[in-house]
């Protein structure tokens, strides 16, 4: 019956070790203080047990020195915890440049995945080991959360927004994928498997299946089908701004202010075009909310992005120092 019961999750990503290190530190602190308190309580209860009915305790009113001591010590211990926890969070928050991108869409109750070359999967995710992978995630309905315990990563998937999760798998194998944010009846069924593969196997897998169009190609088609191209021409004659070489740039807005063009901004430009109007243009663009699915949005975004620096991933965040693997292994070029 109970054949397989682990006590500790596997460390299958580059981040896992960092997280576990804090964990062990915390366990040590907890064990120390719990045993200290419990030990003292039991010892005192025995040592000073009431010996006759009318006995009373000693009137000790306190000791400022002692109390300051046990104010200051916990304070410093917790500050170590804070700094350490925040540092690890930062490392896990910023995806390194050049990470392999994968689109993920959560909906009740499944995970839809599309790789950049078009390969789709549902409730599964195949990734190569040794290479940073960045998931760009959106939701079609309610909140979900993408959680891979053995990688120690998790991020909520929020409708109306994109959230990013990144990791570098280090060990080939199959790992649990859970939805960790309660999302309705089959929340506990919104699970799947993450398969980490050696890069060569991964390449074989990628080319093995029936690949759909790549998101960029699909986006290009949508761009025509949805008549985006009637306003956004490749020259400055259109009613809308030119989208070439737009990604990553700063855009001046009507009414003051600028905004950096990222996935979220393009998304907003499509579903809520009036929220931020580009300076020098009329707010003519109609909303496409309800006309495009979350997946199609991701494809449109991929296309708009492809009109800029070919193939380069956005957001040139500094290479995370915690990612030695990404340099030691050959980085597979994106098509």
């Amino acid at each position, binding site marked *: 019956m109970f054949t397989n019961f682990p006590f500790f999750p596997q460390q299958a990503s580059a981040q896992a070790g960092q997280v576990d290190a804090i964990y062990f530190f915390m366990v040590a602190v907890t064990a120390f203080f719990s045993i200290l308190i419990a030990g003292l309580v039991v010892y005192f209860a025995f040592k000073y047990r009431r010996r006759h*009915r*009318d006995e*009373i305790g000693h009137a000790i009113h306190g000791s400022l020195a002692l109390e300051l001591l046990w104010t200051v010590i916990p304070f410093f211990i917790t500050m170590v915890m804070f700094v350490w926890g925040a540092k690890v969070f930062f490392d896990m928050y910023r995806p390194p440049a050049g990470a392999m991108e994968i689109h993920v869409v959560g909906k009740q109750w499944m995970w839809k995945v599309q790789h950049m070359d078009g390969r789709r999967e549902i409730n599964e995710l195949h990734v190569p080991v040794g290479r940073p992978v960045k998931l760009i995630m959106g939701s079609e309905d309610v909140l979900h959360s993408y959680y891979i315990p053995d990688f120690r990563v998790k991020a909520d998937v929020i409708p109306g927004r994109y959230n990013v999760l990144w990791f570098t798998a280090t060990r080939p194998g199959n790992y649990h994928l859970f939805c960790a944010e309660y999302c309705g009846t089959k929340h506990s069924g919104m699970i799947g498997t993450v398969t980490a593969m050696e890069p060569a196997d991964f390449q074989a897998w990628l080319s093995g299946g029936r690949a759909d169009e790549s998101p960029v190609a699909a986006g290009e088609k949508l761009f025509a089908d949805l008549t985006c191209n009637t306003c956004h021409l490749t020259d400055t004659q259109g009613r809308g701004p030119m989208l070439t070489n737009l990604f990553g740039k700063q855009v001046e807005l*009507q009414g003051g202010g600028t905004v950096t063009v990222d996935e979220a901004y393009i998304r907003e430009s499509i579903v*809520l075009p*009036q*929220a931020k109007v580009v300076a020098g243009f009329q707010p003519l663009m109609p909303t496409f909310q309800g006309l495009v699915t979350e997946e199609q949005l991701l494809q449109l975004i991929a296309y708009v992005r492809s009109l800029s620096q070919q193939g380069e991933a956005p957001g040139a965040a500094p290479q995370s120092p915690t990612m030695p693997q990404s340099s030691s292994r050959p980085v597979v070029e994106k098509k």
Partner: protein
Amino acid sequence: MSDGYPQAPSVGLPGRVSIQAPGNPHDEQSSAHPHHPKLQHHFDDMGQQAEASTLGMWVFLVTEIMFFGGLFLAYLVYRTQNPMAFQEASAHLSWKLGAFNTAVLIFSSLTMALAVRSAQTSESRGTQVFWLVTTMILGATFLGVKVIEYSEKFAHNNVPGPNFVWDGQYPAGAEIFYSLYFCMTGLHALHMVIGLGIMTVIAIMAWRRQFNTEYFTPVEITGLYWHFVDIVWIFLFPLLYLIGRHYGGH
């Protein structure tokens, strides 16, 4: 002992109650200053009772601040997210009606303050009731104007919900604005209705000559409540009616 209950120790300090006059019940003892008929049994004197009531009202107003505060926070967040939409939507409210209502409410605050004062200085019941009723009339005027404003919004289908219609540039943001507009002004109006109800009772009590220098706490705390409702409006008016008036101005 078999139950394991210890007896009271025979050592240690004596109890800390020093009975002043053993066997002398409280009621007789207080014959020095006669009981006010409005003094509740668990208070020592009228001063303690009055202080407790006003403090209670202040604490209640703090909870009211936090209650409206949630709405103001939502306003703040959505305003920063949709500045243009909020300006556009706000421009469709009549600032004239808003300003008129502001004046009405401020005026009612004045009459309320005078009502409290008239009770505090034991003025005639006619004066007390006059100020209270004036306050109520002003409050009712405010609500009347609000009805006009609301029905105008209903007529134009500017009420958030499935039937929301917006012919401006920012339908989504405008809908959020109007959601907040109706929640904020609606709750504010509800508070005024409750205030009018309380004031009716107070006015009747005043007519029955229940308030004077000795005892006017009910009028006082009603006043506190009414002024608070006024303060909420003091913020609602510029936030809802005036923001970004100059933009695309009229």
